């Protein structure tokens, strides 16, 4: 049997890698990719806790499904914003987008 | 007799006995037998695929008033082998500037998305790869791997036509996934199960009588998902050469082509499974699983033929028409059907009037839709005619 610690450590590592991506990448789309990794780590945790602590209820899975919906909404809006910025400013390097208005 | 009733498990038990008698551990032997089984199953699919090429060429020839391949073997049945030899000895070109890994992975993914579906095909009660309780979701998931292979091929080819073809195909596949999922949901509501075996078991009366309109929606969106005519915009030769597989040669192209044919057959199988009772055929399936499997393959071939019939009869649709047809017509209709089916099914639950009520409500919806379309078309025509009366005059 796999102890719960393996899953939790894996999720923590995935979350940290995602955090690194969000903080370190230049490209705005890559930052969103990092956010996706972090959301996946959270989902692994939710499903793991469901399986190990409360398999008789479905709470963990419902939470994970809500996270899916949030992730889909976040990606749709985020990518639409990035494409709009690319049209207006012709760049998606996050460091160059430092004007409040133009 | 044992074998006739439950062939797969009988073979498994005898193989396991002979494997373990040589001193092999039981776990290892089981895994080994599973691998052999998977290999045999996939080989069966691929051999069937070879004959699908022949069937396709013969049927299209008949539709177009030709004879089709008739030189190699009786009725030209060995023609596909000649095709394969030709594909194998062609030069295998990787274009300059292509993304080599993705370029070579794409045909494999295309084939994979089809073969994955075979895992849940219930040929007969005891002849099914795995009875997943989320089977229908698995069908959609495998479809999304197909989408992935298309965009991989289009991008990795380093060719503008291929990329544009991939964009079109992906837009089409993603859009038509929605009415398809809604149609599958109708079936799930009726069967009370998402598993393929559960859906077949629920069909004392085939679901075509419960949901005839859903069948039509599923057929249309399945054809769109397959990328066959009238939805074969990815290979509109006059516009974008051959779409996402423009740059592929030899056996890599062969994999795309074989994948498309096997995909059509597989969807024929799923239509048989979802709407026509799978292996059931007037009690004939009681004779044994092997007869059931033959009935299932026969039904799948019939719906494969229906898909071909549509392909070689209907001309290609323009892309904006295709997307508008999906978003403004098919998707709303599918959701209306889902709601009506749920409501009527709830009202007539456990009653003998369930089938007639559902059938009549479907007919009613169809009639209302046709009336609405008629009035809509009349309005559009009147608007057009009001705009340019002079053009009308010159025509007369």
């Amino acid at each position, binding site marked *: *049997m*796999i102890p*719960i*610690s393996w*899953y939790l*450590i*894996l999720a*923590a590592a*995935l979350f940290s*890698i995602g*955090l*690194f*991506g969000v*903080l*370190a*990448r*230049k*490209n705005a*789309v*890559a930052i*969103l*990719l990092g956010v*996706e*990794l972090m959301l*996946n780590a959270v989902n*692994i945790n939710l*499903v793991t806790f469901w*399986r*190990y602590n409360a*398999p*008789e209820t*479905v709470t963990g*899975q*419902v939470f*994970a*499904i809500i996270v*899916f*919906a*949030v992730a*889909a*909404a*976040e*990606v*749709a*809006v985020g*990518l*639409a914003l*990035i494409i*709009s910025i*690319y049209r207006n400013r012709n760049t998606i390097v996050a460091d160059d987008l430092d004007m409040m208005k133009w | 007799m044992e074998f006739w009733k439950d062939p797969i498990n009988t073979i498994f038990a005898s193989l396991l006995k002979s494997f373990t008698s040589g001193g092999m551990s039981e*776990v290892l032997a089981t895994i080994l037998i599973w691998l052999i089984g998977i290999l045999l199953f996939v080989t069966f699919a691929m051999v069937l695929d070879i004959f699908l090429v022949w069937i396709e060429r013969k049927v299209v020839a008949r539709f177009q008033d030709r004879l089709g391949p008739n030189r190699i073997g009786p009725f030209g049945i060995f023609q596909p082998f000649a095709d394969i030899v030709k594909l194998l000895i062609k030069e295998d070109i990787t274009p300059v500037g292509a993304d080599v890994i993705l370029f070579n992975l794409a045909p494999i993914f295309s084939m994979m998305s089809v073969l994955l579906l075979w895992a849940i095909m219930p040929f007969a009660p005891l002849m099914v790869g795995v009875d997943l309780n989320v089977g229908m*979701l698995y069908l959609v*998931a495998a*479809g*999304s791997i197909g989408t*992935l292979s298309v965009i991989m091929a289009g*991008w990795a080819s380093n060719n503008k036509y291929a*990329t544009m073809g991939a*964009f079109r195909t992906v837009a089409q596949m993603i859009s038509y*996934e929605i009415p398809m999922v809604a149609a599958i949901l109708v079936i799930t509501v009726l069967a009370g199960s998402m598993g393929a075996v559960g859906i077949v078991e629920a069909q004392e009366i085939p679901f075509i009588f419960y949901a005839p309109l859903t069948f039509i929606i599923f057929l249309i969106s399945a054809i769109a998902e397959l990328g066959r005519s009238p939805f074969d915009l990815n290979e509109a030769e006059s516009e974008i050469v051959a779409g996402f597989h423009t740059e592929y040669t030899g056996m890599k192209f062969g994999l795309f082509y074989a994948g498309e044919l096997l995909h059509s057959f597989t969807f024929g199988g799923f239509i048989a499974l979802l709407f026509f009772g799978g292996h059931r055929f007037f009690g004939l399936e009681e004779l044994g699983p092997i007869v059931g499997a033959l009935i299932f393959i026969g039904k799948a071939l019939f719906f494969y033929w229906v898909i071909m019939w549509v392909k070689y009869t209907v001309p290609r649709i323009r892309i904006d028409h295709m997307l508008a047809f999906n978003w403004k017509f098919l998707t709303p209709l599918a959701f209306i059907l889902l709601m009506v089916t749920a409501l009527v099914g709830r009202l007539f639950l456990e009653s003998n009037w369930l089938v007639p009520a559902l059938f009549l409500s479907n007919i009613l919806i169809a009639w209302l839709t046709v009336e609405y379309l008629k009035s809509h078309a009349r309005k559009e025509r009147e608007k057009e005619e009001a705009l340019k009366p002079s053009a009308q005059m010159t025509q007369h």
Partner: protein
Amino acid sequence: MQITQILFLIFAAIILGSAFKVVTTKKMIHAAFWLIVTLFGVAALYAMLNAGFMAMVQIVVYVGAIAILFIFAIMLTRKELLDSAAPLNKNWTVAALFALLSFSGLFTLLNNWRGFANTAPELSADMDTITELGTALVTPNAYLLPFEVASVLLLAALIGAVYVANEAKSE
């Protein structure tokens, strides 16, 4: 070593390796494809956790929709410059430090939890998680409201995305 443990380690290696490639690869399109590898790995983990429904939804939603959206966005905003320039900004060492800190912090927190070495309880054979999940999502006393809110959120995101990305409206 049991078979499940070996499988877990393989999947974990796939997930972490491809996640690392996602945040470090130069070519954005490759980063997106590495993300897809990660997502498949996570789906395999869900399957190992007896959550088959979650595994399928992971592939349908993430691979079939979100990853494809990412690939589209990368193609629409592609510039040769971006693929050749350094993928990380100049503060990446600080970012790496933060990531390490967060990992060690999480690890310490988890290590102090007494249930850390728990193993999974046996699932009863007759349990049908999917039916329960479906019922829970439409039961007013359970999760009907969050479910509806999620659907409204999706609708709002859909309309917002169309409005923001529509070029004609940006004047």
